[in-house]
């Protein structure tokens, strides 16, 4: 069934995320099924507006970024690209590591992606990441309920497990948090490294079991 035609301003459907940026879930909001599209706004200067990631996977994506407001600096495979408002940055190579940092507060980057030569399919990370809206209201019970349900549907999704562990840590459920973080890391080692710098784990950081798991890493995809 096709999605219905309609309009909405970005500010009407943005959600806050723990790392100081807002996420407008454009694709999911409009039910778009032909390409991935999201927008990210950094609350302040020097904030990450696009997480470091690549677009490899079963359907490697080309990705287009458009700096809507403010000023960003992209880093693509180690090369810096200055990107004031109005700049398009098109990353053709799915394997290229890319990230963007805001130089100004309220820097917004629109990210659009899809696979070259293949039909687009929404990817898993987006579904799990929607639960991040509960971080703004600190409603850890709601976050855990939503992520637990998703974990039941997608037991091998490391990102859902990681976010569930974050919510459990913040809710004071140390044992559950450590168990789910360990499972996440067993599925995808990069989450061990990510956990090391994630303040969501501050409540359990002193636990020797946490220290055994944690390291450094990047986070997921942005457009789709």
């Amino acid at each position, binding site marked *: 069934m096709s999605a219905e035609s309609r309009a909405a301003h970005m500010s009407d459907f943005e959600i806050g995320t723990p790392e100081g940026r807002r996420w407008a879930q454009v694709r999911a909001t*409009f039910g778009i099924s032909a390409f991935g599209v999201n927008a990210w706004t950094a609350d302040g200067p020097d904030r990450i507006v696009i997480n470091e990631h690549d677009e490899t996977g079963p359907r490697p994506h080309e990705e287009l970024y458009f700096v809507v407001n403010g000023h960003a600096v992209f880093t693509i495979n180690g090369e810096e690209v200055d990107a004031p408002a109005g700049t398009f940055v098109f990353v053709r190579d799915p394997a290229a590591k890319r990230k963007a940092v805001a130089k100004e507060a309220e820097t917004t980057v*629109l990210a659009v992606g899809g696979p070259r030569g293949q039909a687009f399919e929404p990817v898993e990370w987006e579904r799990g990441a929607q639960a991040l809206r509960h971080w703004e209201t600190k409603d850890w019970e709601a976050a855990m309920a939503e992520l637990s349900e998703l974990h039941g549907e997608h037991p091998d999704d490391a990102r859902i497990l990681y976010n569930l562990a974050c919510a459990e840590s913040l809710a004071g459920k140390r044992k559950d948090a450590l168990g789910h973080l360990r499972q996440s890391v067993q599925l995808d080692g990069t989450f061990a490294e990510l956990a090391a710098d994630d303040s969501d784990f501050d409540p359990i950081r002193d636990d020797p079991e946490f220290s055994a798991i944690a390291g450094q890493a990047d986070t997921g995809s942005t457009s789709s």
Partner: protein
Amino acid sequence: MSTYEVAHLDELERFPVDDEGLTWRPVRRRLGIEAFGCNAYTAEKAGDRVVEEHSEQGGHEELYFVAAGHATFTLGEEEVDAPAGTFVFAAPGTKRGAHATEPGTTILALGAKPGVPHEISKWEAIFVAFGHLRNGDEAAGRTELEAALAEYPGEWQGFFNAACFESLTGNRDQALAHLRHAIELDPKAKEWAAKDTDFDWLRDDPEFPS
């Protein structure tokens, strides 16, 4: 192929599309995007058209983003106020269009067909050719046109459009030759020629196909 491409909106080409002020700024073509369609449209003045009225009968989902300025969309029968930062999603088949309500309004248009790999329009170069012509650069337009004909030698639409281009630029012999070839490839080109005003000055020519 390079890993990435960078371009600022101000560097994109500007091709006038109609008499209502609609200006096409090719993004997909400039950057070499293959997975989805992307273009920008700019209106210089308030009241200018900034999205052509159309329905995407080919099945594309389209998302419009008001990147700068302010526009009023029509979406089906509904009028939608769209300041900068507004997304407008148009499902395939929905009639849509937009006018600027502020000078310098720029809209990004993103599109693709669900469930299938994205295909780049065969006729993008033709649109560029006519854009150059409207900008007064006949030579650049002809270069684009010739490239399109070489790429799709069996498609009547390319030769039909080439005939229109040559007719509009007063090249009788080339216009008639392209039109004859288009009709050889598909006789429906003759019906199209009968109602296309681009050929009005040639219609009484004894060699004009009738």
